[in-house]
């Protein structure tokens, strides 16, 4: 229901910032994110960064699977 794309922050000029999304650059609002730094990745929805993306992109997911396959997964949170 909410298309969002990941982008890398190139430059900050609050309340906006420049992000790179798979080869294209665009300007997004960054007011919803605290302490954003260039080089970090953000999730962008409707022209607005809505959250930072953890740099260890798939690791959490893969870890979970590893643990599941190992049979010792646990409920989250």
């Amino acid at each position, binding site marked *: *229901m*909410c*298309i969002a*794309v990941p982008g890398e922050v190139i430059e900050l000029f609050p309340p906006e910032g420049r992000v790179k*999304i*798979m*080869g*294209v*650059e*665009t*300007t997004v609002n960054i007011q919803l994110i605290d302490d954003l730094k260039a080089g970090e990745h953000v999730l*962008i*929805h*409707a022209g607005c960064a809505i959250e930072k993306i953890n740099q260890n992109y798939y690791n959490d997911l893969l870890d979970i699977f590893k643990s599941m396959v190992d049979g010792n997964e646990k409920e989250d949170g």
Partner: protein
Amino acid sequence: MKDKVTLRHGDGGKHTSILIRDIFHKHFHNELLVNSLDAAVFDGHHGRLAFTTDSFVVKPLVFPGGDIGKLAVCGTINDLVTAGARPLYLSCGFIMEEGFDMKLLEKIAVSMGETCRKTGVKIITGDTKVVEKGSVDGIFINTSGIGVVQTAYQPKSIEEGDQIMITGGIAQHGTTIAVKRYEIKVEGNMKSDCMPLNHILERLQPYMGSIKLMKDPTRGGLATALNEILEVSGKGVLLLEEAIPIVGEVKSINQMLGLDPLYHACEGRMIIVVDKQKSGEVLEEVRRCEGCEDAAIIGGFLPTNLPPKVVMDTVIGGRRIVGPLEGDMLPRIC
């Protein structure tokens, strides 16, 4: 020349003559055009001729990779090429709004002239109308074209196993236009694929016997064009998602806008249906053409016992239907 096109430039009188002379004859110059009166006359041909028409209403008029003029010439050339015809002559009808910028008109004419010279195609007859402010949004161009069908080519019945080739990355034109139309503030190496395809035809001359069908996936994009081919052939199409050439920027922008690149117009690409045996050679040949380096075989035709649909094997190995465009493509956030 005045700096704006006025109603007088379309009244058929002196102003019209001046406009034709100073812009159109200047940039499209050739004997047949300059000597034509109500119609241009040229030597007929033995063989079969192809005839096509398209009106071009693109907005914006100038876009990365081209403008409406280049598009108008390429579009009709490409429709002739898909009929296996060597494009010879074009007609060109301008409809302009009074007040249209004369410099922009000349820029458009220049790119039409350039594309003609590059392809050896001649605009031999034309028409200019100027309508009242508000009666048209800027400029519309119609081109019609005549070409000689290459003797070795005729559309053939499509059979199971025939391969589907696309001559380059898809969706570049449509995506470029969408970005401009919806004023999406993105920057990147995005440009229309707008390009004449007649050189491909020349190169494919030796393979005409193995080429079953050609089609340019313009409005409605690759998906719609393949569905049209399906209607003609009656045979199902299987596409391989991974094989479809598409540049990263195009992918990225379409993801952002919630649009599907399969439905975006290409203006310099051709679908070629080719006998499986020769498909490798043809692909190599096509890839040697300028602008076709990314050409790829993206699928093939299914046996008649399977339902006549266009289906696609997805990147994860799933299979789904790819229907024709139904309804407009609008940028979405949901």
